[in-house]
């Protein structure tokens, strides 16, 4: 079942003449992970804001086309320190801020918060002041804060930007787990190497328009690699002048060598 549908969506920020998104059509089904890839300024972050119903409602601007959401959405923005509520002195309270705003009973808030803290391996930090955390810890707190609101559609904008290698692995596992629970996940990321294992579909955005949609194999496509959006293995293979099709992962490369 579709969680998010965009049909011919175009978006203009206030006081701009050219659209940031151009005629974008996209569907994300429940239990599916769709990754947005593209160069800086390709429109991935804006697409997430539109999907989250924040653009144009909060940002201003103009939206053309149709956007249909079946589930409540939650978005994780790329800068964790600007997403703190400023009203909590412990990580537990910070994560509970959103669920409390939804008016849930306290026992349900506690259940969701505890669950989210466990999922993000934040239980040992539950009583820490969020302002004393590192960037990576803070990013996990913000992700937990969104997940504690139990959104059906989860949107991630560069979720691994502040995370170390361990935190990143935990994040990708968690995203897979969310999809297995039936949530729809739409993420914009430059961590291309993770996508073959994480994403079900990849959408290549260029200048605000959808250039191509496909399985993660798309990241080994010649045109994608030419645009600098291939996986590391595909990029190295291409740089070495080896013949296509390019391998997507190390495992694929090993198979090709044999």
């Amino acid at each position, binding site marked *: 079942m579709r969680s998010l549908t965009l049909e011919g969506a175009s978006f203009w920020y206030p006081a701009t003449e050219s659209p940031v998104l151009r005629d974008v059509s996209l569907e994300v089904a429940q239990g599916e992970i769709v990754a947005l890839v593209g160069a800086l300024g390709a429109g991935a972050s804006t697409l997430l*804001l539109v999907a*989250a119903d*924040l653009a144009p*409602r*909060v*940002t201003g601007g103009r939206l053309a086309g149709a956007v249909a959401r079946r589930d409540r*959405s*939650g*978005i994780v*923005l790329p*800068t964790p320190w*600007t*997403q*703190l*509520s*400023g*009203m*909590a*002195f412990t990580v537990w*309270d910070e994560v*509970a*801020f*959103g*669920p*409390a*705003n*939804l*008016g*849930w*009973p*306290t026992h349900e*808030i506690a259940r969701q918060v505890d669950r989210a803290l466990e999922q993000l391996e934040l239980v040992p930090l539950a009583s820490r*002041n969020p*302002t*004393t955390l590192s960037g990576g810890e803070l990013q996990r707190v913000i992700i937990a*804060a*969104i997940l504690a*609101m139990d959104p059906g559609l989860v949107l991630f904008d560069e979720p691994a930007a502040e995370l170390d290698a361990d935190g990143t692995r935990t994040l990708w596992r968690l995203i897979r787990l969310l999809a297995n629970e039936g949530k729809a996940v739409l993420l914009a990321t430059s961590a291309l190497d993770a996508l073959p294992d994480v994403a079900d579909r990849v959408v290549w955005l260029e200048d605000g328009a959808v250039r191509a949609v496909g399985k993660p194999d798309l990241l080994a496509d010649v045109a994608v690699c030419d645009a600098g959006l291939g996986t590391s293995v595909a990029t190295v293979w291409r740089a070495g002048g080896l013949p296509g099709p390019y391998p997507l992962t190390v495992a694929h490369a090993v198979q090709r060598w044999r």
Partner: protein
Amino acid sequence: MTGVRLHPFTLLAIAGALPALAWILPAPAGAAATLAVALVLTLTPGGRPGSAGTRLSPGWRPGLAGLRTAVLTAAPFWLFLLLLHDVPTTLSIGLRITTMVASFVWLVAALEPARLVEAMVAAGWSASIAYLLAATLSAVPVLKARAQRIVEAQRCRGLSSRGGIAARLRALRALALPLVLSALHEVDERALALETRGLVPGIHRTPLAPPPDPVVERAARWVLLLACLFALIRRLM
């Protein structure tokens, strides 16, 4: 020694009543009395975790910082008053303004925004309005911390904030522009984040841990209100 943790409404009532009484009571004696109380309050360290907050407990260092902030903020007012008025008028207006400043400085140090939101939501106020008020009160320490970071960053780039007036003005410009721009940028992102976390008009937020509001404190707030009204009526008659 365990400190006394006052209900946020009590803190607001005290911080509101002192300036009100300072202006209502005859100067300079009335204003001097309210100022004395306000300055003593600034000496009580706050209990906001990590900085200064709601706990009226012993320990003088944070309090001295509050007192210094209040005195330094009020000093320019005294200077201009002296230039414009005679000494008795300067004294009466200066004492009142300093009471206002000291009360606000104490309130900012003593009031935990999160407790205020909880208290207001528990009392039936809109969560959005509660957040707006709490965020306004917490803006001062947040901007102060950000300004400190910007000053440190500019010093790393060789900007000196010492020396003559011209050098200090250059330093002020180098501080003000990034401070305003970064604050505006953060407001944008924070608005998006708060929306996605459910802080929208018309919500019915669940109070997570509403602060206890003892009968004594409720009575004290009424006493403060009645004292202000009584003083006003007495002054007008």
